[in-house]
């Protein structure tokens, strides 16, 4: 199955094209160059899915199960919800990072596989997650590699990775909150993000950060546009927190799409039992590339990948001429293509907005009660884990959690 799904990814990558480089010509951010990805052609129909941010505004509920690896999700809408692996779920409980991108089916209660990204914070049973924030790319990449190699993301390794990541970036958090890095560099992220605006019709981006390449690709430009701020923050924070004057050359960025198609051939299928009906996720780690893809049937939805190009970086100012000529060449040769894409996209975008406005929650607030619907995360094709334990009485279970708890110094 993984082979046939990876062919879908390969075919998808052949239907996109890398755009011109975007960069700060004055050298404000010499270690980052962003390349937009455009579809070679755009269908007339907009997507029928919502991003998690939109879903939360329209009545989707996320709540803590009390278990570190699971979050309960309740979708009362008639549309599937895209939850990205770049999302950090924020609420008055332990922060969680979504392990793998998935689609929450319409009108369903399910559980999401997540990883804890705040080691020193205990879980709060039934606490609601009300917002999402971006997860730094290095943490995402580590998580994906773990999934590709072992079929699961080992929690203690993620905690260790976050701890050393915070130390390396000089960010401080008593609870080892991964967002501390945004707390330290947040102002820079806001200012510098204006260098890299999203373009109409754009479906993805390759961000060259130092000697790393980060790719995010969506099937639909509407979804990309909704998620672009987080996509950019995820890469931008790495550029700001790990300053250098070197950046990977444009040739490597162009090569990444081909390399990605090759790396995805050796992939592993992960599927959440409760989300199996809505989509399948692939993870892969080969040839210095690690990534994940979400497919709905034979249709791609999202792809995210990280490629290490260590040893292939060159000082930004040495590449400035090449980058500027690349920009000029694109604008002279692809003008009509870009104009057509913008026209097609503006029609789709209006229809997508109308679709979003028409969505109303099917259940009343009182009916969107938290029900213990536990699922044991996802199972790879090779692995079949035992079912998740369910307490007889959540109150008694919580009583014992409080009773047996011992605060440790973190």
């Amino acid at each position, binding site marked *: 199955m993984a082979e046939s799904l990876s062919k879908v990814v390969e075919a998808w990558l052949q239907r996109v094209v890398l755009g011109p480089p975007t960069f700060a010509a004055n050298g404000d951010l010499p270690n980052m160059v962003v390349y937009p990805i455009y579809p070679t052609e755009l269908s007339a129909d907009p997507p029928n899915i919502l991003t998690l941010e939109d879903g939360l505004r329209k009545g989707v509920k996320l709540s803590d199960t009390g278990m570190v690896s699971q979050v309960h999700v309740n979708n009362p809408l008639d549309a599937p919800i895209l939850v990205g692996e770049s999302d950090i779920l924020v609420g008055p409980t332990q922060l969680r990072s979504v392990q793998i991108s998935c689609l929450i089916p319409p009108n369903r209660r399910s559980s999401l596989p997540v990883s804890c990204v705040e080691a020193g914070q205990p879980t709060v049973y039934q606490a609601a997650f009300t917002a999402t924030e971006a997860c730094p790319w290095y943490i995402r990449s580590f998580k994906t590699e773990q999934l590709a190699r072992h079929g699961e993301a080992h929690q203690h390794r993620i905690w260790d990775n976050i701890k050393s990541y915070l130390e390396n970036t000089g960010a401080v958090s008593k609870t080892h909150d991964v967002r501390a890095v945004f707390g330290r560099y947040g102002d820079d992220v806001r200012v510098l993000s204006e260098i890299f605006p999203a373009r109409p019709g754009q479906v993805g981006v390759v961000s060259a950060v130092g000697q790393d390449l980060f790719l995010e690709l969506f099937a639909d430009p509407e979804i990309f546009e909704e998620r672009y701020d987080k996509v950019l923050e995820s890469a931008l924070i790495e550029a700001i927190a790990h300053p250098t004057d070197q950046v990977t050359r444009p040739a490597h960025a162009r090569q990444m799409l081909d390399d990605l198609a090759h790396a995805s051939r050796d992939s592993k299928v992960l599927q959440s039992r409760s989300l199996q009906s809505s989509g399948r996720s692939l993870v892969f780690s080969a040839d210095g590339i690690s990534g994940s893809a979400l497919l709905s049937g034979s249709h791609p939805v999202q792809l995210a990948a990280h490629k290490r190009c260590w040893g292939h970086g060159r000082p930004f100012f040495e590449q400035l001429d090449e980058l500027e000529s690349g920009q000029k060449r694109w604008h002279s040769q692809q003008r009509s293509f870009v104009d057509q894409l913008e026209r097609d996209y503006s029609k789709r975008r209006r229809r997508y907005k109308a679709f979003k406005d028409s969505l109303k929650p099917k259940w009343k607030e009182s009916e969107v009660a938290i029900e213990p619907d536990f699922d044991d995360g996802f199972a790879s094709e090779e692995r079949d884990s035992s079912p998740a*334990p369910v307490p007889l009485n959540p109150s008694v279970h919580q009583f*014992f959690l409080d009773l047996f708890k011992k605060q440790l110094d973190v």
Partner: protein
Amino acid sequence: MFSAGFLIALWDPYPGLIVTVAVGVSMGMLILGPYAAVVLYTTRLQNVLGGHLRWPLLILLSVSAVLILDHLLHWPVAQTALALVAGVGGTALGHDATLAVLELGTTNRGVGLDLWMVILFPVIVGLTSLAGYCSLGFGLGIYHLSVALVL
């Protein structure tokens, strides 16, 4: 549990009853509850009947354990009945306590597991019922002493 011990002392001061309750609750929490949790989740029985097999299996496990002991020790009917109630209650508490212990012990960094509390809590629950039982005799003794001193 204190009240239960007190009421048992009022109802029938035969020490076998209160010892059965105290030991039944403690053993239910320490042995049968964890055992039930292991049986449920490692044999995938949790998947049967949409997850509603937990209570029936738990009751079956504790009742059968009490009946075996009854067969071996020839308890009176009242003692068997109390052992059944204490066993089922203790097993249910022990099941949820086991899940809490597993959760705290394996996944929640920054929040550790208080092993002493895990061991002592079931014992304390059993001893509380004994304390309730003894308090009746203690109260009566104090009353008789007071009466003898005053009169």
